């Protein structure tokens, strides 16, 4: 297994093309914070983006920035914070905050802010990508509004590097909120918790985040407000939580640790994290399923996105018990545990995905096997 870290985009594309010519599989890797997303075979070439560590452009007045893919996500956020700005993305960043911007986009990873701002596909404005035939292709733009050409950045975001290697990322920025506050409410019944979430999701509260946390038959709701009047708005949200039937309501002005914990529970060193998606109305079923599988659960309550941390042997029963119309994808797992990431997939759209893969990576060497259906 060779491990190369080219220092130029052209060098990266050239190495990719050589591997494609030899039919040699390539594992594209950023900070290596998601080892489960890149199990490399012995004959693979590992291509790292770690030397792509420069900020291409940041014009504060435009509230946009372009970073080379290997820039650590945390470093980029720190740089932006100097100008009072941020990317409205808060995925877990792994050990020593190793996750890179390119890796976050490639895996479509997100955190609690997805409630209001969506996932990388919603924040990325433009991408530069190396394809396996050695070409370097840009798509999107550096401006926040653009409909010229296909919106390929959305296709690459979350494609796990199976279409090519991301070299640079242009993102939309937001002003750092002057203040935030987090409102917490508790419940010990899945239906009561879900009813409260439904109430909060329908109210015009303009929440930054609306999360749930659940473990062994009890849990709660976490809501974040941000802005110039966060403290006063937090009182309104607390009233709404009280109306919605939640108990033990609390407001925290120093709230970062709550959200760090929520993010942290999207990863596990010793157990398996299963991402469950579906209608938000299925929340009570998901909470009961979590209890049945002895899972710790966190999730984006209004988005129908839940992360269940379970023991490896619970994955099969969890998948079997999943209500119709829901999906379970295995994310983080210990290195010695082998589990099918995607589970059985019979979606007719997978055929179309294969056609897309065949066009962008005809040699089939970019991160083979990492996408749904073995793509």
């Amino acid at each position, binding site marked *: 297994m060779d491990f190369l870290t080219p220092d130029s985009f052209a060098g990266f594309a050239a190495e990719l093309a050589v591997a494609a010519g030899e039919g040699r599989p390539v594992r594209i890797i950023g900070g290596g914070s998601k080892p489960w997303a890149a199990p490399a075979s012995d004959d693979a070439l590992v291509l790292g983006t770690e030397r792509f560590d420069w900020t291409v452009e940041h014009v504060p007045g435009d509230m946009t920035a372009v970073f080379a893919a290997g820039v650590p996500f945390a470093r980029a956020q720190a740089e932006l914070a100097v100008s009072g700005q941020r990317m409205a993305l808060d995925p877990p960043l792994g050990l020593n905050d190793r996750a890179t911007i390119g890796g976050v986009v490639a895996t479509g990873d997100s955190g609690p802010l997805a409630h209001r701002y969506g996932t990388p596909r919603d924040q990325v404005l433009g991408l530069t990508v190396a394809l396996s035939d050695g070409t370097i292709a840009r798509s999107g733009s550096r401006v926040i509004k653009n409909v010229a050409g296909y919106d390929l950045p959305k296709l690459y975001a979350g494609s796990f590097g199976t279409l090519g290697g991301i070299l640079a990322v242009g993102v939309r920025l937001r002003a750092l909120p002057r203040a935030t506050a987090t409102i917490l409410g508790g419940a010990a019944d899945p239906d009561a918790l879900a009813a409260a979430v439904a109430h909060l999701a329908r109210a015009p509260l303009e929440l930054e985040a609306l999360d749930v946390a659940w473990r062994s038959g009890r849990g709660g709701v976490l809501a974040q407000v941000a802005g110039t009047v966060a403290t006063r708005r937090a009182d309104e949200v607390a009233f709404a939580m009280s109306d919605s039937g939640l108990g033990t309501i609390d407001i925290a002005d120093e709230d970062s640790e709550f959200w760090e914990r929520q993010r942290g529970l999207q990863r596990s060193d010793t157990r398996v994290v299963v991402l469950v*998606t579906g209608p938000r109305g299925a929340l009570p079923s998901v909470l009961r399923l979590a209890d049945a599988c002895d899972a710790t659960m966190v999730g984006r309550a209004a988005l129908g996105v839940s992360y269940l941390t379970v023991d490896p042997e619970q994955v099969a029963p969890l998948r079997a018990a999943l209500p119709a119309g829901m999906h379970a994808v295995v994310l983080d797992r210990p290195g010695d545990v082998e589990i099918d990431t995607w589970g059985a997939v019979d979606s007719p759209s997978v*055929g179309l995905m294969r056609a897309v893969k065949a066009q962008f990576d005809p040699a089939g060497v970019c991160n083979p096997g990492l996408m749904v259906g073995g793509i």
Partner: protein
Amino acid sequence: MSLEGSLRGVRQITYEPVEAEQLLADLRRICGDDHVVSDPHALSVYDSDGLRQYRQIPLAAVLPGSADEVVAVVRCCAASGVPFVARGAGTGLSGGALPHVGGVVIVLSRLRKIISVDLAEAVVVAEPGVTNLAISAAVGPSHVYPPDPSSQLVCTIGGNVAENAGGAHCFKYGFTTNYVVGLDVVLADGTLVELRRDRPGYDLIGAFVGSEGTLGIAVRIHLRVVPAAESVRTVVAFFDDVAAAADAVTSVISAAVVPAAVELMDALALRAAETAVPGGYRLDAGAALLVELDGPLLETAAGLEQLLELCLQGGARDVRVAAGVGEREALWATRKAAFPAMTQLSPACYLQDGVVPRSRLADVLEAIERLSAEYGLAVANVFHAGDGNLHPLVCYDPGVPGEGDRALELAGAILRECVARGGSITGEHGVGVDKSAFMSEMFSHDDLDSFARLRCAFDPAGLANPGKLIPTPRLCGERPGPYQQHPLEQSGLATRF
């Protein structure tokens, strides 16, 4: 018909001549005699979209009455190797729905059912012919569907998906692509695929939205809606010139105020609009900045204070806050009248759609002013300032020999100024046929080739709206004519951008 070009998928495709009568008979069998139009005179209704400079009479227009009929029609076209283009209300402004020689126009206006409204999930499922405004009407007053193109009373959701429609409020709320959570798509070979955001795999919905009809036809659309804002505050600030107004926009947005909409009109546009539809704007100002804040009452109240202060610091000579819904609607009515008002003042206008990074607004406006003087043609500026999305209106007289061509050159020069500043050739109108020649100003051959890869994956035969979005050489005699008012505008039903 042959399309030439060096990109994959659009390389030397030749459509075999078909037995037109047989195809028409098949289409009539599928949709019924009443829903197939083949008389050339009757077909003139479908010969263009909102960009009337480009016209083409197709072989036929069909109006399928169900998704199944769309599938059958597309299969028919595929079997005969006939190109097709889907059409909603025909309000597009880039010629995206321009018919093809010998091709079929698939008109989706009969597919106008809202299939379900689920406020618990905040999802509406609609057929493509449902109008944009009907979605908000179906979920109101508690919820709204945020993308709000100016043609929203008549433009359809299917067209919005094809063009990734924006609108005045997309600065805060995003575009169509941020709201589509599911699509049932008829591919160019007649296969029906279900795409859903919550299913694992590639984001094919993201790839499809904004594909201008070149990847297939969406026959069922799942849209996310959001709770309606608790309060709305609308402000108009008057400046001596557009540069000062543009700089004020940057200072407001940098100060963490997130307006729902930020619209700017220069003196020419302002006077035309206020004269045509009086809404309380000052006629003596050099520029008017319309800013709308929405959200929780506490937030908009605090934001309003900040906004007023920043506008005055930025040199606003007068600032007015709309006192109620009536005043607010009047301010917007004037703003939305800007384009039709200009077309009343000038024999013809060419509407451009370019984008620059926001900090380059003042700078690009200077360049436009310089170009306007150089070409001797007036240019009025109306734009979505928060997004840096310019809509310059190039005024000209088609009666003066050569002036139409000069207007087009000027409009093209403006786009080059946008691209030179790191911007885009289109913010919301799409590429269509109008801008395909400018794609290579913004993208390299390899970039364009990556677009062609996507098209090949979805439509290897190249039958879904060929010749749009990806550049191909312009055919002879395709010189665009002057701007003409769309019948919907004449009837007062729709306004532009």
